[in-house]
């Protein structure tokens, strides 16, 4: 790795591994602003930014955290992310957060919002219900009311009041971030050897725990350095799409394992928030309407989103086609209802299309990957040897 590339990735990895959110603490000291955590998948980051609030992505404790008290809150058959999240809440790592927002992901995260209310009664705790009805006059109106109420709640906690012109500016800033992320995904799709997924992943994780402007600069530096890394040459690896890891994230070691076992990850749903909207948002007009419309019409086909008349799996097949993936890895956390209930439907579509696939599960704190390495390696070999 060249000097600058090494530096950028190390910087990103340091942010990613800092469970005590040092960058958030520094930002608060400098600005005196509020910082509010949010659980994975989607929240309207632009709205927080426009009110001078730093949104902070909370993606659990990964493989770095020993769970001491968190296990006393959950039975063994519940996924890992809520127990590490509550552990971090209890051990003081989130002292710098003035509140937490829990988007509508599943029943576990939904109930965690109530646990947070009981555990941290003085903080802002918000369950963000997003519509599953995508009619602008019905679901759109409801979602707008949710956003207005969130904005009022932030203001009541000391954030700046809602201001349409500031929200337009924030949308423009996040469009820039979305554009940078899209560019990197495109570059990885074209030249996956230039943008290894374990690097892209730590950049994405870094982008949710520091100010958006700093994230844009970091992504720019990475892109420039990666493009210049001529020593990175293509290898005979299978191109795979990884799906199912949208909430509880796989440990970095697992991503590295997939790559070492002979897979180029050319599309994934890790840290999906900057790719939740498939297009940039308009920077003019009524900005709240822009957020609402984008959510209704341009969101990705996530398992947490009701798929009405559309055929299940169609969106994934399109992603396979767009990314040039040769196979699909269903990589879901254990006990993840949205991913695991969705999986048989998507598998049916993938099989019908004749696309090779394999499936395994993980927990965010897994430390042993030998079995997955063998499985992914065999899968990669079978694609290279037997696919058309």
């Amino acid at each position, binding site marked *: 790795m060249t000097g600058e590339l090494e530096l950028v990735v190390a910087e990103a990895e340091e942010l990613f591994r800092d469970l005590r959110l040092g960058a958030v603490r520094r930002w608060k000291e400098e600005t005196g602003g509020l910082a509010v955590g949010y659980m994975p998948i989607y929240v309207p980051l632009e709205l927080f930014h426009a009110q001078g609030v730093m949104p902070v992505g909370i993606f659990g404790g990964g493989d770095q955290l020993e769970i001491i008290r968190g296990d*006393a*809150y*959950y*039975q063994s*058959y*519940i996924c890992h992310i*809520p127990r590490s999240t509550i552990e971090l809440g209890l051990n003081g790592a989130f002292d710098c957060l003035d509140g937490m927002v*829990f988007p*509508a992901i*599943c*029943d*576990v995260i*939904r*109930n*965690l*919002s*109530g*646990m947070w*209310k*009981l*555990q941290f009664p003085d903080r802002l705790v*918000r*369950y*963000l*219900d997003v*519509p*599953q*009805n995508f*009619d602008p*006059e*019905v*679901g759109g*109106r*409801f979602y707008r*009311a*949710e956003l207005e*109420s969130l904005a009022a709640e932030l203001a009541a906690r000391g954030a700046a009041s809602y201001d349409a012109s500031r929200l337009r500016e924030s949308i423009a800033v996040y469009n820039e971030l979305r554009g940078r992320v899209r560019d990197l995904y495109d570059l990885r799709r074209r030249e996956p050897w230039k943008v290894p997924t374990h690097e892209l992943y730590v950049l994405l994780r870094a982008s949710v725990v520091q100010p958006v402007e700093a994230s844009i600069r970091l992504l720019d530096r990475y892109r420039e350095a990666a493009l210049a890394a001529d020593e990175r040459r293509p290898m005979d690896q299978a191109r795979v799409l990884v799906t199912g890891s949208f909430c509880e994230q796989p440990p970095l070691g697992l991503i590295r394992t997939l790559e070492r076992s002979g897979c180029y990850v050319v599309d994934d749903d890790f840290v999906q928030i900057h790719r939740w909207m498939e297009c940039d948002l308009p920077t003019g007009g009524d900005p709240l309407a822009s957020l609402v419309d984008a959510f209704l019409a341009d969101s990705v086909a996530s*398992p*947490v989103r*009701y*798929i*009405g008349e559309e055929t*299940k799996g169609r969106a994934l097949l399109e992603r396979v086609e767009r990314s040039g993936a040769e196979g699909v890895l269903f990589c879901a956390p*254990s*006990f*993840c*209802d*949205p991913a*695991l*209930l*969705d*999986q*048989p*439907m998507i*598998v*049916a579509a993938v099989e019908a299309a004749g696309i090779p696939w394999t499936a395994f*599960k993980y927990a965010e704190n897994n430390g042993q990957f030998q079995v997955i390495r063998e499985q992914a390696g065999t899968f990669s070999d079978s694609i290279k040897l037997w696919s058309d």
Partner: protein
Amino acid sequence: MTTPAEAVPEVRKDGSQHKQKQMIADHFSRLARAPRTGDKCVYTFVPGNLTELLLSFDLLPVLPEINALQSGMRGKSREYISLAEKQGHSEDVCTYVKCDLGMMKSGNVGPTGEKIPDPDLLLLSYTGCFTFMKWFEILRQEYGAPVAMLHVPYQGDGEITAAMRDYVVEQLRRNVIPALERVSGKSYDEDRLSELLARSARAEDDLVWVLESAKNRPSPIDAYFGGVYYIGPIFTAFRGTDEAIDYYRELRAEVEQRLADGRGPLAPDGEIEERFRLVVEGPPNWTSFREFWRMFADEGAVVVASSYTKVGGVYDTGFRHDPARPLESLADYCMGCYTNLNLPRRVELLSRYVVDYGADGLLVNSVKSCNSFSAGQLMILREVENRTGAPGGFIESDLVDPRYFAASNIKNRLESYLQMIDQKRQAGGTA
């Protein structure tokens, strides 16, 4: 040598139980005849069910959760779950879903031995349980039936706002009612809906009276094991019917008599002599239902209040279906179901039960299948203990997967819990 008839002890039942059994049998027979009679079937869920609205269109409700639990009680769920798992459904997810899918793949034969017809519509009332949404996405693929989606917002802040109510009502007007009109070929008749809702409220009054009779000592009812029978008609296909009114009137009369006689609840093996009064959080296990109940009955443990009997509607805090505002009332009903309440509200409700019903403690039956109930139960337990001073107990099982019913483990934990209550009593503690 004993004959089989002598080997099986006779199960004792109240008259209302026989009546309910007949109501259910008649309903399943009507479902079985539907392909010949032309009746249309709508699959939907218990929490947030819109039975009166369906009945106002002469549509027949089918409740896959009820089918699954009955498969569990009939000893069929093991093979159904196994079949679904062989077809790629994860061992980690809800066993109701897998049991329902396995039943469908095995011919969709219901509890009366007759085939349940395929759905003409899937009414996805997405209330208090994320799995519902996936469940009907799966059924849509399997049956190719249309889906009417009703997204019921969660009470994240413990209240129903005007925006939430408007959202549900608008979905009813714009999506659900037109879908029901299409499938039934009939127009929406609000007067008819109001009449049905007025009947619902009458039955709800009697149900609440029955549930609250457990405040007496001894309690004339068991509000968990017995309670699942009491909620049967009102949580399923009968809310809004004269049959439901009659059933609850008869049930109330039985309980009044039991109260007047100073008798305890009737369990399958006979009357329970009350030694412990418990509040139970979480659904029961269905695969070993009688064995599970017997563990409590043998110890004289009577459940005086439970959260499971509120999963299809919380009526004892004052809600009644209101014929004067039919759609708004249905919206409030959906949003008020137990699993749509946030955790602080659940803690408040359970704490109030412990105090108002003079319970010795709160026992959680945590089921592996249901994250909507189970995630957060350990915290609920501690909060209720802190607020009431009554000790908490914790057991684990599953809804319909017999692999997760470890009888000796559950019995040990239950007995230890009851011994602890006893010791606290002897020591002059709050229990």
